[in-house]
């Protein structure tokens, strides 16, 4: 066979092992490719170093890594100049536009719409107070035990101010799918 000749040329250096014959399958006595063995040894050496580094020389644990990450994030956090004591109702168009966008993107309606999970925000009744400061606070800090999500880790104070203003100015009296009926006090 031509194949055999070509084959023998390619593998002049490898011998058939004569006593190895399994249902016609023969084996050659080639050594394993050296690169394969070197990488194998290298991986063993690497492993020894790895274990030494983390368990003998006390390299950083995953909790150490976490603490570092959190400290860095804290250091990078922009300073907040928002004055939470004196919140004012925003009335400009820009604030209204931002407010409606945020109200949609944070899916407030998932709870305050047809599902009736949260209160109707379009009526004059408020459980937690109907002034801008109260609405700001409930959005920012939520009311976890009642199921109102705190949004302080998702929205900046400015943004919360915009949504709160939007609710009090534009949402009031708007058509709603919420059918819970009045809750809290009329303001």
């Amino acid at each position: 066979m031509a194949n055999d000749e070509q084959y023998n040329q390619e593998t002049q250096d490898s011998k058939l092992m004569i006593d190895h014959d399994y249902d016609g399958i023969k084996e050659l006595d080639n050594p394993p490719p050296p690169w394969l063995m070197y990488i194998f040894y290298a991986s063993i050496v690497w492993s020894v170093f790895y274990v030494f580094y983390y368990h003998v020389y006390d390299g950083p644990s995953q909790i150490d890594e976490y603490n570092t990450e959190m400290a860095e994030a804290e250091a990078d956090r922009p300073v907040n100049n928002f004055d939470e004591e004196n919140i004012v109702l925003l009335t400009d168009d820009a604030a209204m536009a931002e407010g409606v966008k945020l109200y949609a993107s944070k899916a407030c309606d998932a709870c305050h719409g047809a599902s009736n999970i949260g209160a109707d925000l379009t009526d004059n009744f408020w459980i937690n107070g109907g002034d801008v400061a109260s609405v700001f606070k409930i959005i920012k800090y939520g009311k976890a035990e009642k199921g109102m999500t705190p949004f302080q880790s998702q929205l900046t104070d400015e943004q919360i101010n915009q949504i709160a203003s939007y609710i009090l100015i534009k949402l009031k009296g708007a058509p709603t799918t919420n059918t819970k009926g009045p809750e809290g006090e009329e303001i």
Partner: protein
Amino acid sequence: MEQQTFYYDNKIVRLFGGVTILWGVVGVLVGLLIALQLAFPAMNFNLPWLTFGRLRPLHTNAIIFAFVGNGIFTAAYYSMQRLLKTRMYSDLLGRIHFWGWQLIIVAAAITLPLGYTQGKEYAELSWPIDIAVALIWVVFGWNMLGTLAIRRVRHIYVAIWFYISTFITIAVLWIVNNLAIPTGWFESYSIYAGIQDALVQWWYGHNAVAFFLTTPMLGLMYYFLPKAANRPVYSYKLSIIHFWALIFLYIWAGPHHLLYQALPAWAQSMGVVFSVMLLMPSWGGMVNGLLTLRGAWDRVRDSAVLKFYVVGVTAYGMSTFEGPLLSLKSVNAISHFTDWTIAHVHIGAMGWNGFMIFGMIYWLWPRLFNTKMYSEKMANGHFWIGTLGMIIYAVPLYWAAITQALMWKEFTPEGFLAYPNFMETVTQILPMYYLRSFGGLLYLIGFLMFAFNTIMTARSGKLIAEEEASAPALEPMKKSRESGETPHRWVERRWVPFTIWAFIAIAIGSIIELVPGFMVKSNVPTIESVQPYTPLELAGRDIYVREGCYTCHSQQVRPFRSETERYGEYSKAGEFVYDHPYQWGSRRMGPDLAREGVVGGPMYKSNTWHYNHFLRPQDVIAESVMPAYPWFISDQIDLEAIPVKIRAMQTLGVPYAEGFDLIAVENLLKQGQSIADDLKSNGIEVEKDREILAVIAYMQRLGVDITKSHK
């Protein structure tokens, strides 16, 4: 030397080969359905037995145990007879093995959609089926070792080394991982809890990949590849080195599935280093396979069989390169819980397992039926469409994985999560899910061509049921080593010591990794405030297991800023001590639920929210791909089982007070009533014994205990 004449049993080979094709089609079909469900949740059809959480285990079990399982039995029954120059030890054992295994598959296909599951990945089958698997596996091993005992060839060939290691390791893994206390005909609790369960489970899970999907496939390769190529095996020495290194190292690598999770650091490090050391031993198999094809490359162009082998072996090389890569903690931090893992296993399953089995059967069928392949052209067509299908399946998933991982981790300059709404990160990758489903469809079409081609081949010939062969009888040889005989050559002719050595190789890693988990208390620091579940919560947890929620939800917050911001405090080992079985999961199709119940945490939802969400997730989260669970509201909690479950938990060491089983139902109904009352105050009427209340109670309990110790 007296020449003996005997007959190979080809009937058993045809039986196993035939069902390999049949179950393969079923397994891929279910795979396609669940791929579509993730893209189009309406495909769950609001039917319990057709939801993703129940069908995903059906898909994985069908591919692993039915398709690949029967495939490796086909390979073993054909090649062992010829490599050992004897008929199989017992026709009867072979038939018991065959029919027993098929019965197990049918039982699995019925029970898994009905929701009978152990809730452990790739070990979902319920306890009676587990026992059947163990028994049938022993029948297989018995038949195999018996055949070794009556062989006419002195030395055992490398393919059979791999079969032997498969048999003993799977037996050990299967039994240890499935130990459980039954609480009903098909229900049970794993005897392990929390991190112990996690360790045992991934010691099993990873080595099921190693010893069910890899070693027997290498056995298959070492016989069928040189046969089809008609070339000698490239390196006998490489065979020896990579065989022993592979089986010794593989068994340690399981914890790489649990990196950055609540597992002791030493165990994680074992998972990392042993995976890295595995790279070259795995590649040893690929290199030996590909170099065996030297001098046969010109034939690869025309032969579908050789093409399947080339791509199959290359896929093996790719997945075994990717495996160690994914075991590096820095890579794993990104890849874990994403589709990367799914893409990775499909390169293995479609490419390595699938293509090697296709190649084997295309080669085997004409020989068994003494005819020619019905259509070589169609086989080549199958090869191309299968390869294309695999690429269109995997590439979009890699893309999806990286996209989603980056979205999970992105922060705004203000220091907030850029995508706090989890669904945004799912919606973003849905186009990739459409593509992957299309890739799966192509693979299925190829599979159907394969089925058709093999059926037509069989019909065009006639099975040579009894194939005559002859060989000289084996002359007795002294047990001790002969001069000039290498130690390995010496063990190769003695199957009992060989089997014992292989057992020792896999036992070392198993013992070192598992035993400290049970014995050394410091591995699971206890947390005072962590208490057992109430009966209602326990019932809810069992429903969670039944529905396979773990196929989409993890319960493990890793110590990353991106996770503690999104989900809450990172998970601690001591929090899971009553979790039989643990439910950490491995993929986040939906958000992590470990802190779902923490009031004031980022995940907390009210009872009303949960009620609406389970009834119809899309009403609450518009684009949700979570299935609806309307039957939670119509179905009653199985109250009769509650005392049995409490007693089983007591046996497992969960500290319920003496006699608690007697008042458990009363306790359950009381808690149910309080949730029903709360729902009622929000306008929702539901009776106090409905499943929905149990599931809500469980959701509200998740991750809560640890917050109490802070007060």
